[in-house]
């Protein structure tokens, strides 16, 4: 059975229906709704729009109209279709990265927090990786691996996993001093049992909050990478590479900058609001400290 310290996780919060607590928190609700809208757009949208790759030279750089609500780009491709497919690419990549870094960071952070030897080695490596500004390390890794969507996932996992590991580790350091861990050790429970069944459930709240912020960071970093030509390679649309195309024609086609830009803005804002709200909900101590 999982052991949970009272008041430290959402296990206790469940006594008040979680959904009601969530919807009472306006920050979390607004953020959640924004993210939900974007997610639906990313999942269902591609089925409803035109072909994002269909080139039509005679339709180049058309202003937004009934036929092309977001206008067309410099190859005459429908911009709405590209922004919607870009949502799928950006959110899909960001979700994959947030998930992989969470699992990896959880595993590394749990063992590092529990075992001093592992800690000494692993956290020094994490410190070293965190000495690189995120975008720069991402560019450098992408330069070596080459511009492919899978490589974006690999590069950003390298960049962000240490941050998850650090958060998990510091939670574990506090939890392992608790009496219940000592009791388990005295009973002869195995290390992996204590770590995965008894400590891991207690670090889920900070992990979820951290994963949310990494999701936001990933959206920004992936867009920046693609904007620099080192991310999701054209002609497949991503918000970043649409902006790159748009920069060249910024004097003639404001819509190529505004629509993908606003999409990034709303998504990142939504995820940040959701993260702030979740932190208030899951970590009451933090909420008090800020207010």
């Amino acid at each position, binding site marked *: 059975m999982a052991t949970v310290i009272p008041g430290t996780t959402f296990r206790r919060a469940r006594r008040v229906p979680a959904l009601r607590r969530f919807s009472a928190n306006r920050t979390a609700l607004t953020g959640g709704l924004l993210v939900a809208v974007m997610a639906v757009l990313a999942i269902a949208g591609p089925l409803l729009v035109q072909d994002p790759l269909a080139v039509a030279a005679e339709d180049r750089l058309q202003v937004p109209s009934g036929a092309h609500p977001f206008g067309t780009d410099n190859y005459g491709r429908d911009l709405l279709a590209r922004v919607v497919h870009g949502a799928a690419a950006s959110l899909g990549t960001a979700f994959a990265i947030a998930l992989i870094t969470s699992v990896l960071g959880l595993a590394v952070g749990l063992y590092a927090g529990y075992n001093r030897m592992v800690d000494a080695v692993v956290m*020094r*490596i994490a*410190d*070293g*990786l965190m*000495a*690189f*500004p*995120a*975008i*720069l*390390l991402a*560019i*450098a*890794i*992408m*330069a*070596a*691996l*080459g511009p492919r969507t899978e490589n974006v996932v690999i590069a950003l996992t390298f960049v962000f996993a240490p941050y998850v590991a650090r958060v998990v580790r510091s939670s574990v350091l506090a939890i392992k001093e608790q009496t219940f861990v000592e009791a388990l050790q005295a009973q002869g429970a195995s290390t992996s049992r204590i770590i995965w069944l008894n400590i891991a459930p207690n670090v889920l709240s900070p992990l979820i909050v951290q994963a949310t912020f990494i999701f*936001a960071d990933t959206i*920004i970093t992936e*867009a*920046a990478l693609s*904007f*620099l*030509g*080192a991310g999701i390679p054209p002609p497949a649309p991503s918000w970043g590479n649409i*902006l790159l195309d*748009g*920069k060249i024609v*910024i*004097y003639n086609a*404001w819509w190529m*900058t*505004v629509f993908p*830009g606003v999409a*990034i*803005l709303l998504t*990142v*804002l939504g995820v*940040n*609001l959701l993260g*702030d709200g979740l932190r208030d909900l899951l970590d009451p101590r933090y909420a008090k400290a*800020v207010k």
Partner: protein
Amino acid sequence: MTSYLIKRVLALVPVLGVVAVVVFLLIHLTPGDPAAVMLGPEASAADVQALRAQLGLNDPLHVQFLRWLGGVLQGDLGQSLFIRQPVTEVLADALGPTMSLAIMAELLAVVIAVPAGIMAARRRGTAADRAFMTGALLGISVPSFLLGLFLALVFAVGLGWLPVAGYRPLEDGLGRHLTYLVLPAVALGAMQAALIARTTRSSMLDVLTENYMKTAKAKGLSERVRIYKHALRNAALPVLTVVGQTFGTLIAGAAVVETVFNIPGIGQLVVNSVERRDFVVIQGVVLLIAVGYVLINLVVDVLYSAFDPRIRVE
């Protein structure tokens, strides 16, 4: 203090070691032969072999690492494959515009964010405070390159007040220099401003509830003196820390903003080097910025503990 300093510097050794290994290994992350990747698909086998020999890629990995590290420690970052110039020279040329941009962005951020944060703390809970917090959240949510594109769209393309892109060095006159730098600096500084403003607000809020603030009020000191002389001085440390610690991030962020505005700095150098597969230059830039980042953090930490001895206990 001396022992603290020594401890902090020693703690850097493993971090810098990892930084060096990561930067060195970058070149070996390439799928296949790094020399072939650098030269591109048209290169002949003989050229690839020649480059392998030039880069010393035929030696065992640890030999290559030690040779590379030895060079780095003597200030030799290698030779750019594309520009055929020492990387240190290429870096030195690119550093000027980047530093200009980063310093101006930081100045703008501090000048706007500190007063804004103080004001928000004083009017805590009011509409002004909420508007401010929302603004700060927006600032954190807008990636700098996106803000740069939006600013260029409005102020350069739409209104025609400022140039859409480009760079003029300081030698062309301060006015011209600044005209070209304003939009990129605002774009780059916005997130910084949001962070500084949030920190100023929360740090001021902590200080304002202290007993000595009540004493100051009881003594009959004016609000101006209480806020700027008593509160701000005590609230300044966390703010200075944020300014220092995020300066490295600012320089990295400049990489992307420079591309938006075609500024010939470190960022554009990296992006061009990615296109040219000039790994030696990429390694140089990444190493320079990571080491700079680590050293700035060291200086900030040490200054912090010099100002506030309580910190050292941790």
